[in-house]
């Protein structure tokens, strides 16, 4: 009997699988649950691993800070900090995971950065250039795959992004093309008054031209009237170009401006055209710097020799210093003080940011500690205030700042002021304080970069080869097993579609090892069908009719399929469980993909294949038993 409910259920699954795979991205909001799957750039919108779409994979090992063991909290803290840093890099789908080595605390961090090999150039082009202009110029020069994003039109800042440049000459070529299109030009305004306020003639075009020719013979000068000239440079390079970086060279700018000294007073100079800055980012090295080369923040109590003569020394202050000098020197020269370790560490620091304080003219840095840190900070500042010592803060072993304290500070919130603080320096100090808040040291132990083109190349080749292999399997099955072969083929196609749809919905990241698991799972799916076909054939040979042979075939094949597949699933579970001991996701990806594949193959073999077999066997053609047996004859089984 054909079970109508099974038929409807199976058809629905089939239609859903097709639907899921037909749209690259699926996103909707259902009952407040956001559902967002798929990827517009990949085949069927599947989520691809770094080895298939290209990217960078870094593994860091945590090193304990002096004398302390690493705890799980430390690792989680470090993971969060790395995640924040990675996110600030602006790469989508990046991830930071804690992985282990099998014993003790999991002490490794796996950072995955897809698409890092893409190119990003931050560029500043003066002269009212729009993104559209820039895009046109790039297109004309053959860089059609580079996209332009306007960041700040007033300042002329743009972000160029696109696939990795093919070779090392290409970047200079690109910049050259832009330089040719946007030559460097300056607006120079001469003052029409002398310093004493008397009227004076502005220099003539000839004089300006003559002056400029001292630094650049091929320059062009344009009179914009009333003492304002536009000078377009040709030979004189006013910038300093380093690898991946250009900025204005202040010395050269000075030389350029000074060339006009003899002819008049310059009132104003401004850049009116040209590429004044560019910076290439997005490289692996830069990411590694940002993520891994982390500073370690340490707080120390700077215990200076006392101000007053406390230990009844004969001569105080020492070294023939006056009392005033001693107060200055006691916390400055290392022979007068000792830096003592304290229980406060970088991980106690929650935040640090530039701030202002009423009554203080200069900006300050506000620091905030967590609860434990707040208590310790209070004790520390109390001691420091009492002894007129300092609180020294070190970054990577180098002293960052060493503020004093006038009294114990409670509540875990404090501000640091300094006589030389300005808006820039408080910003830098805040960043340094924050970046140092890593509870563990980091040691790079593994790195893997895959070029996107290699990934997509191996993916498309493997897909092609895999599909061809599958086609050969189908041909073999049909020609050898006839009707059961046809059923198996249809069931296999169903299986492949459902498997991909499930991968997309969960979603499972497809890696090269996952692809291998898919091949194996196809083998498993074929195997189930072969077992069933063989069993059905045997039952036919023992004299049963077609319909009951099919039923028997399925029920007899079941124990073998169950036992062999359960063993495979056991292996998958163990591998998945152990997989995070390996610093690659290769093993886990394989185990997960294979496990899901095997489960689905059992489902398709016993639902879809059975349904199809019953459907076909109830048709007139499907009732011919020689279409089920490759030998075409009914023989009694030989197990007598």
């Amino acid at each position: 009997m054909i079970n109508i409910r099974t038929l409807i259920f199976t058809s629905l699954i089939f239609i859903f699988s097709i639907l899921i795979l037909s749209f690259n991205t699926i996103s909707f909001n259902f009952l407040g649950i956001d559902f967002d799957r798929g990827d517009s750039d990949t085949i069927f919108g599947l989520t691809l691993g770094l080895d298939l779409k290209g990217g960078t994979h870094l593994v860091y090992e945590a090193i304990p800070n002096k004398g302390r063991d690493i705890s799980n909290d430390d690792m989680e803290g470090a993971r969060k900090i790395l995640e924040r840093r990675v996110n600030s890099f602006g790469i989508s789908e990046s991830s930071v995971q804690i992985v282990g080595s099998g014993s003790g605390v999991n002490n490794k961090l796996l950072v995955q950065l897809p698409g890092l090999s893409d190119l990003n150039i931050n560029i500043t082009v003066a002269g009212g250039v729009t993104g559209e202009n820039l895009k046109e110029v790039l297109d004309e020069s053959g860089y059609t795959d580079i996209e332009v994003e306007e960041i700040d039109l007033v300042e002329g800042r743009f972000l160029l992004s696109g696939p990795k440049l093919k070779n090392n000459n290409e970047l200079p070529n690109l910049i050259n093309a832009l330089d040719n299109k946007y030559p460097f030009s300056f607006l120079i305004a001469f003052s029409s008054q002398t310093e004493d306020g008397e009227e004076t003639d502005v220099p003539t075009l000839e004089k300006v031209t003559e002056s400029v020719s001292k630094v650049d013979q091929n320059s062009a000068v344009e009179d914009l009237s009333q003492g304002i000239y536009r000078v377009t440079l040709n030979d004189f390079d006013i910038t300093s170009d380093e690898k991946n970086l250009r900025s204005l060279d202040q010395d050269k700018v000075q030389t350029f401006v000074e060339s006009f000294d003899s002819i008049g007073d310059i009132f104003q100079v401004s850049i009116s055209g040209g590429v004044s800055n560019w910076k290439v980012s997005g490289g692996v090295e830069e990411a590694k710097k940002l993520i891994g080369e982390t500073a370690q923040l340490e707080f120390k109590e700077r215990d200076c020799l006392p101000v007053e003569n406390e230990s009844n020394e004969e001569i105080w202050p020492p070294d023939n210093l006056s009392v005033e000098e001693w107060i200055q020197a006691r916390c400055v020269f290392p022979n007068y003080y000792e830096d003592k370790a304290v229980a406060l560490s970088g991980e106690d620091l929650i935040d640090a940011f530039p701030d202002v304080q009423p009554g203080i003219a200069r900006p300050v840095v506000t620091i905030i500690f967590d609860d434990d840190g707040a208590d310790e900070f209070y004790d520390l500042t109390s001691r420091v205030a009492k002894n007129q010592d300092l609180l020294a803060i070190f970054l990577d072993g180098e002293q960052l700042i060493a503020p004093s304290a006038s009294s114990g500070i409670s509540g875990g919130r404090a501000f640091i002021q300094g006589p030389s603080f300005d808006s820039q320096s408080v910003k830098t100090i805040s960043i340094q304080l924050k970046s140092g808040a890593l509870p563990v040291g980091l040691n790079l132990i593994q790195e893997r970069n895959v070029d996107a083109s290699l990934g997509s190349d191996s993916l498309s080749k493997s897909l092609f080869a895999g599909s061809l292999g599958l086609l050969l399997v189908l041909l073999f099955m049909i020609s050898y097993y006839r009707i059961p072969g046809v059923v198996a083929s249809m069931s296999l196609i169903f299986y492949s579609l459902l498997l991909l749809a499930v991968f997309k919905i969960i979603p499972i990241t497809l890696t090269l090892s996952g692809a291998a698991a898919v091949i194996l799972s196809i083998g498993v799916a074929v195997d189930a069908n072969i077992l069933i076909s063989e069993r059905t054939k045997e039952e036919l040979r023992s004299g049963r009719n077609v319909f009951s042979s099919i039923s028997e075939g399925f029920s007899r094949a079941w124990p073998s399929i169950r036992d062999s597949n359960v063993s495979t699933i056991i292996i998958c579970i163990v591998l998945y469980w152990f997989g995070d001991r390996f610093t690659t996701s290769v093993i886990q990806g394989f185990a997960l993909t294979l496990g899901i594949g095997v489960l689905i193959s059992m489902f398709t073999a016993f639902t879809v294949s059975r349904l199809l077999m019953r459907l076909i066997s109830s048709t007139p053609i499907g009732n011919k038993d020689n279409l089920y047996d490759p030998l075409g004859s009914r023989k009694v089984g030989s197990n007598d």
Partner: protein
Amino acid sequence: MINIVAKRMWFLSASTVILIVGILSLLFPPHLNLGIDFLSGTGVTVKFENDINSSQIESQFNKIGLDSPSIQSMGDKTFFIRTEKLSDFDVDNNDSTVSRSDLEKSIEEIDSDAEIIEIESVGTKVAEGTVRNSIIAVSVASFFVMLYVLYAFRRLEKSYRFAFSAVLTLVHDVVLVTGIYSLLGHIFGLQVNSVFIVALLTVIGYSVNDTIVIFDRIRENQIKFPENKYSSNINISINESIIRSLGTSITTLLVLFSMLILGGSTLREFIVVLILGVIVGTYSSIFIASQFLIIWEEGIKKK
């Protein structure tokens, strides 16, 4: 019906010979041609634009202090170069002074249009863990498979024999595949990396799967014909499953060979191990696995 059981000494001897050859090959240097996942170091895949030969690469690498890099041509002007680990790894235990940018620069020197397709560096710590964890994972997996077989065959007398034989077959397959791969490593320079471990795991899965299907038949026939001699029941079971075993391997091999011939070069070593594994797995499930059962029952002597 083919009397496979009677010829068991032939198959066991054949396996023993291949095992000995494989183990010998493993004993002689370079044993297994271990990759950077196991030994630490750096592997770079570079596609050059111009015609470059190995000695050009070697001399350029020597210049920056990377001695005796191993250079392997992968065709299409693409080379796989393996060398020591770089300076930013293992900060506490590293005497390398060559940084990644030094390496990139020296490749640029060889051919300014070269494209670095893939670069991988592995520190000592990772390498040490890989071997240990692979062995642990395989052992634990085998243990649990054994438990399951014990459970699945619980209705039979001496079900533990099935469990042990299945695992013994698994070990046989792993050693055989590793041995043959080591031999191929001597001849073709195939490397063992973490992908090899995945392939070996696949082989284990396949081998157990295949063995259990046959054991299942033996279980069925033992229950159906308890009066038959143990070895003749086993022979019947093997004969009944042989078509299925061959059918499954043929289909799997069809996919694998098309992947080997048409798939990308990155998967080549992986596919080679899988093909070896499928062939060995099928062979052992038909000719070896059940023989362990018979020997256990009837002793080593041929009856």
